[in-house]
């Protein structure tokens, strides 16, 4: 049986917690074969980050059941506010995804229906129409992410 869990000093990675996938020696395997690891061996701001993908609750989550999605309506107004729980350091640390029910038939340029988010903070963002002529109703999820290596060192 391979060594699967290491709490301590790894030759590549230093002190931390490491868990390898089945059949891989946690002390020597490639990073791609690690199930979980805490070391930060990366630099720069564009490609770091690891850990579980985590939804940021819109509300609740600590003492009550989390509300995992929000409904944003930008039909009558071109902007709307989105609020969520404070689980990140700043607005660059969230990934905001949306979806909507699209019409089965329509035509013309006016049917460009979309949403984008500006001014993200640790607790919210502003929803905007991507095309000024068309609004809509969108379901929105917020995911936690790490912006740069500093959060891991």
């Amino acid at each position, binding site marked *: *049986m391979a060594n*699967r*869990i290491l709490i301590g000093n790894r030759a*590549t990675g230093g002190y931390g917690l490491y*868990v390898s*996938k*089945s059949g891989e020696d946690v002390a020597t395997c*490639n*990073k*791609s*074969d690690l*199930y*979980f690891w805490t070391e930060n*061996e*990366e*630099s*720069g*701001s*564009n*490609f*770091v*980050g*690891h*850990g*579980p*993908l985590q939804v940021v609750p819109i509300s609740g989550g600590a003492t009550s059941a989390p509300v995992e999605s929000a409904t944003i309506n930008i039909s009558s107004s071109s902007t709307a506010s989105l609020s969520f729980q404070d689980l990140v350091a700043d607005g*660059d640390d969230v*990934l*905001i*995804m*949306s979806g*909507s029910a*699209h019409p089965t038939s*329509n*035509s*013309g*340029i006016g*049917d*460009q*229906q*979309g*949403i*984008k*988010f500006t001014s993200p903070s640790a607790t919210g963002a502003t929803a905007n129409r*991507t*095309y*000024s*002529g068309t609004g809509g109703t969108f379901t929105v999820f917020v*995911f936690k*992410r*790490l*912006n740069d290596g500093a959060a891991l060192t």
Partner: protein
Amino acid sequence: MANRVLIGNKSASASPGTNYGYGMYVSKAGKDVLTCGRKELLFDSSQGTGASGFIYAEGQQSSLSSALNFLTTNSKDALGYIPLVIHAEDMQQSHNWTWSAGNQTEEYYSTRMDLIKTTASTITPIKMGYGANACLPSDGRRTSNTDVGLGSSQACTNIGFAVLKIPCAYGYMNSTYFEETD
């Protein structure tokens, strides 16, 4: 308070599952990690990496117009498969356009314009083609206002992405990578 963290042998006889064994397990609040089922676990090392949804790489770009290699920083090993990449950008919208040619009317419609192509090491913004025999996707985005009735540029801007350790390609979405037991 329930037992929440187990490093050791999670007994199959005490838990609703058959292939736990030695590993590291973390349960949800209020759930006993010794006896709970797999759906109550926040962390479960007995599953294949493909079933976990763990982030392998992530990042953001203010704009992206060509392939971006998500393995390039330091020594990030190749995964050996095309992973599932989730992303969000400004262009989260549909696009519908009609035009007439002679006595015919054609319609172009896509539910999403924020399309990306994923390989084992890169992501690339792409666009769908239009017109007879030309509907295949190609690299890049439409940015010209005269192109299929754009009301605005559909360039890829403010993109954030997460590369998940989930195989997402034909031939790799199988038990070799997922090892699901429940």
